[in-house]
């Protein structure tokens, strides 16, 4: 057991290191230079020597290996560097922009769970084959809906047509309704699909026939036998989908003008603010890794087969 835990944590650390290294390499390889973008602006009137000084102070011209080691050590000690564009510590920027994104993704994920479970339950309980076929085709529609298009469509309907959500100066909760909806729809699709397929598969298992032979009704079987067996394999997918949420947040926040991590990412890309981007990548990777690690470590609690075998066979 402890071996399993240590192994999983080791993997998580390895993934983080890889994410850091790859993003470092890619960001360095990008054409363009944040310092030049900001300080070569003629209005600032800086001479070449002054710019060279600034470059030295940021360590921009030291060899890549030195920069890499330097950045790595700083990250390990919790120092994520300074944003070239905003001139404030990157850590502060992230902390300031985190809450909207956290709300958005948590609520989006919960709502997608509600969608997925509702669809799966409707499909499992539907008495007609045609109705079930129809419900099972909904996720395919959801997953092929582009986030930006859905966002704009929702604004059109709810804000302009129905005037349910104000566009200008909405309250903090009102502002979240449409983005959360936009995010939840595409995330719910794969969850619903996997859940439905698992339910159909578990329903063909011999132990379901045994339960029916005991006199259990269809509902009883679904609730007492199928539900847990069908949900277990979706845990992993749920963890992976969280990654989608972060990616989806970039577009969603841009469409709805939210000031979250997604918006920060977008602005930093425009400004080529490498320090911020580097920190966001590592932060997202860390969130992703921690969630998946939690899922992995929780599995043995839900699934008795994954607990250590005690020698029982008598």
């Amino acid at each position, binding site marked *: 057991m402890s071996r399993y835990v240590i192994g999983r944590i080791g993997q998580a650390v390895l993934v983080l290191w890889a994410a850091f290294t790859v993003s470092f390499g890619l960001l360095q390889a990008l054409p363009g230079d944040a310092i030049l973008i900001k300080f070569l602006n003629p209005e600032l009137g800086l001479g070449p020597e002054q710019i060279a000084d600034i470059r030295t102070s940021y360590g921009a011209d030291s060899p890549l290996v030195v920069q890499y080691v330097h950045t790595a050590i700083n990250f390990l000690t919790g120092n994520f560097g300074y944003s070239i564009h905003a001139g404030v510590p990157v850590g502060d920027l992230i902390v300031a922009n985190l809450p909207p994104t956290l709300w958005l993704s948590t609520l989006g994920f919960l709502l997608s769970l509600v969608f997925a479970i509702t669809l799966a339950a409707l499909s499992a309980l539907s008495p007609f084959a045609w109705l079930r076929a129809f419900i099972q085709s909904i996720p395919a529609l959801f997953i092929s809906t582009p986030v930006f298009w859905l966002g704009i469509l929702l604004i059109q309907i709810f804000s302009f047509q129905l005037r349910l959500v104000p566009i200008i100066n909405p309250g903090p909760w009102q502002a979240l309704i449409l983005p959360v909806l936009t995010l939840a729809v595409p995330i719910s699709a794969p969850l619903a699909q996997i859940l439905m397929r698992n339910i159909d598969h578990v329903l063909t298992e011999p132990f379901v026939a045994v339960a*029916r*032979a005991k006199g*259990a*009704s269809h509902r009883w079987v679904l609730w007492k036998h199928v539900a847990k067996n069908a949900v277990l394999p979706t845990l992993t997918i749920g963890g992976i989908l969280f990654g989608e949420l972060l990616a989806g947040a970039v577009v969603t926040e841009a469409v709805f003008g939210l000031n979250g991590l997604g918006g920060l990412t977008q602005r930093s890309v425009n400004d080529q603010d490498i320090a911020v981007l580097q920190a966001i990548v590592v932060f997202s990777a860390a969130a992703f890794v921690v969630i998946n690690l939690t899922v992995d470590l929780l599995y043995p609690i839900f699934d008795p087969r994954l607990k250590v075998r005690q020698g029982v066979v*008598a």
Partner: protein
Amino acid sequence: MTTAINIKTVSADAANLPILEIRNLAVGYRGNQGFQRVVHDVSLLVRPGEVVALVGESGSGKTTMAQAVIGLLAENGRLEGGAIRLNGTDISGWSQKQLDTIRGRQISLIPQDPTTSLNPVKTIGAQVAEVLQIHRQGSRAEIDARVIELLTRVGLSQPELRAKQYPHELSGGMRQRVLIAIAVALRPALIIADEPTSALDVTVQKRILDLIDELRREYGTAVLLVTHDLGVAADRANHIVVLKGGRIQEQGPIAEVLASPRCEYTRKLLADAPSLGKTRSAFRVRSRPIVGPDDAIVVENLVQDFALGGKRDVFRAVDGVSFTVQRGTTHAIVGESGSGKTTAARSIVGFQKPTSGRVFVDGTEVTTLRGENLRRLRKTIQLVYQNPFASLDPRQTIFQIVEEPLLNFDPLPREDRARKVHAILDRVDLPQSVLTRRPHALSGGQRQRVAIARALVLDPQVLVLDEAVSALDVTVQAQILELLDELQQALGLTYLFISHDLAVVRQISDTVSVLHNGRQVDGGPVEDVFQRPGSAYTRELISAIPGQRNANQHSFQ
């Protein structure tokens, strides 16, 4: 269709009221070409306390019948006619909701495969309690007490502990006992036992069938026993119904049918069943082996350990097995699951390095071979696997499957390869037309012939047959055994035959090693071992072979 039957064990007036009466039952499945009928006009009676065996090969409709009776046909299945009367009431038109009230209470089910028939994430206790909860049998405390009582009754040790355990913590035999406890919990009038022991070892099978017998007598329950094994039917049933292609071929009291089968198909089934037919009259149906001058396989004190988890513990799967196999003969390794027979076979073909001991195949020491030389060994020794459905690549054509070993060894020109493939196909009696097909288009017997052809295309000296006929119907099994005998005669092959089925082993092998928990407990010429078993375990194995009770009395007439 339904003949009047006299059952000695049941009193005359009770016999007048059958528990189950099936009349002209027809069942069909919706497929690509509309409804296809798989059960035609079947009628039978099950009287109180009686065991009626429904016997047939795969595809005979016996399981469909069982599912129809308990109302659990697959979603695309449909009753197309006839009546199913339970205690006089026709339940064939009942809704699932109505059926829920009698399932578990009046009819119950003992399923085929205990490993998949219990919910893996619920405790044993909860799953036994469930049947009592559904039918509202008392308070929680009463149910808990009844669960322990039931688990004790079906012979589980430490019932309180078992109730808290999960299915994966119990052996197959123990799980089947749990499923029996569920089936008898409410003392139903009828139990449908669908191949209840087909997935179990022969000694466990005997104990489970004994338990069902015992509970049946105690509770006066009738049993509809679905089985492919005539030996099991012969031992356990009062009445037998032989099905083929969804139609009844013959039915009657078991003793009568075994002694003088009226229909041709029943006679064939009886002749092909290794535990019933020829073994008793003629011990060897096969031709005399053409014995070669030397030993094709020599195994000396083979030991195979496996490391357990992260600790230093080792598990000794094979513990000091030795035997020799003369060229041109068949040696069988017999044992139950976990006996180490497959592990021993894997060491012999060089798939894993033994912990100690030596193995010679065709004069070469296998245990020291590495890399390319080990690969070269495959030209001498080939393996045929148990499951002809899983051991063939579904995407390859039969030609590609049989040709593949040739590509791995001899750089033969294309025409020569094709000639070899055609020749070997003739050898295993497959028509050349199968070459362009894929495995799914072939029957189980044909697939196993393909697997044998693939093994033989390299002209090996030794063939290791790992449960090679266990997954096949008796008639097909008899044909494959005959083919193996022919091939041995013609090609001077040496067989190492791995099996759990003693009846088959007795039929086809010359010498035998009996394995139990990795140890060799018996060995020698097959008839010596069967007539004078040297260990208690071998005696138990032999006495557990089904088909000895009734058949003994009737087949020598």
